[in-house]
């Protein structure tokens, strides 16, 4: 039995997160109407990422080479490391354009109840990186939730003997939100993290 080719594309697209059947249908017809080259580029990018994506040997960001474009960029400040949980967090911070240092991706966060122990994360690789290089500052940008917080505390502890400046990203209120609707924990964290003007 030959499956309708549009139907097949719709089914494939629903495998993506957040894509329901209706959205998939809309995307399928959009792709159908795309110039052939554009459609092929999308397909090729998917194949490329599956065939060539790997972790950077230095920072564990996703790359297609041995070291990622950030680690091999000589204009980046290699003495600053921003520690994040996932490669997608690197993209998010890069979009701000503010940080000029390098990253270290842990590939997760500590979670005792899920069996995620320190050895399952790239924490040891971080330690080796710090010992082997003249690192000035480590910025802990793990998520502002319980797992991210525990991970930041654990890393702070193991870095203590190395005497390296360690900082934690500030907690704040989401831009565009109203103080009235912030819960007490978010609000107290924002107050604790206040700064002089």
């Amino acid at each position, binding site marked *: 039995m030959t499956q309708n080719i549009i139907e097949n594309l719709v089914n494939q697209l629903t495998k993506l997160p957040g894509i329901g059947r209706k959205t998939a249908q809309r995307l399928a017809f959009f792709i159908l109407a795309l110039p052939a080259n554009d459609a092929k580029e999308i397909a090729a990018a998917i194949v490329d990422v599956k065939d060539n994506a790997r972790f950077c040997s230095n920072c564990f960001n996703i790359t297609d080479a041995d070291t990622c474009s950030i680690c091999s960029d000589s204009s980046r400040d290699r003495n600053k490391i921003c520690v994040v949980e996932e490669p997608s967090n690197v993209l998010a911070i890069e979009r701000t354009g503010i940080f000029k240092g390098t990253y270290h991706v842990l590939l997760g966060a500590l979670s005792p109840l899920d069996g995620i122990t320190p050895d399952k994360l790239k924490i040891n690789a971080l330690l080796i990186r710090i010992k082997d290089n003249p690192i000035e500052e480590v910025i802990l940008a793990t998520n502002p*939730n319980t797992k991210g917080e*525990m991970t930041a505390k654990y890393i702070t*502890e193991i870095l203590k003997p190395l005497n390296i400046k360690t900082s934690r990203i500030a907690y704040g209120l989401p831009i565009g939100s109203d103080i009235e609707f912030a*819960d007490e*924990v*978010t609000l107290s964290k924002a107050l604790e993290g206040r700064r002089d003007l």
Partner: protein
Amino acid sequence: MLNRTEGIVLKSSIFGEADLIVTYLTKDFGLLRVFVKSPRKTKSRFGSSIEPLTYAKISFLGKEQANLPRLTQSDIIKPFHKLREDYSGMLNIMELLEMNLHFLIDREPHPSIFRLLLTALSKLESDINNGLYYLYYKIKFLEISGYSPRLEICGRCGGLTEGRRHHNFYVSHGSIICHECIGGDDRAVKVTESALKFYKSIFNWKYSTIDRIKAPAHMLAEIQNVINSHISFISSGSKSFDKRLFLSSR
């Protein structure tokens, strides 16, 4: 159908791109897993209310038997966030949370265990390093859930375990075995008569009066040893975590 109850967040697991599955110990439904849509987005209305230990008033949508009802509202009653900020304290608390996850059955109401956990968190907020608070929780939890070790009579002959200075708790039997019945090469935990008396008296205490009890450290350590060995034996095969793996000084 919209349900309302009060619950304490035990754990949250990532589900899909921005969603979570949050496990609560609730007052009316026991262990309850709910689906939470997009809490990981910055503008989520759930804010910090679904972080572990948060005690909240919650509403969820779903039929009585629905596998994964959806959380529609959560209003913090008590955030217990100071506890979350204490790394080593949090590891100890997670042992308590894990007991709930491991031994309780989904949707089986246990109002007394709910109250026990809530009281434990409130007590720990005043002194997160008080070992007695943790021990009391574990002993009471085992009692209510029907997993208590047998420490008052011999697990073989049923004889009273009194009148000797030392006793042997056999982890594989979950009980003390008297000197007459001892045989075989099972692992035993030594426990003194005075520590046993201390253990028995714990059942008469309430969390509210626990601060008045001054337990000698060695006695506390003996009973902790028995209870922890017992818990790790009866939960074998689970992914019960080893606190030591999370300490940087190991």
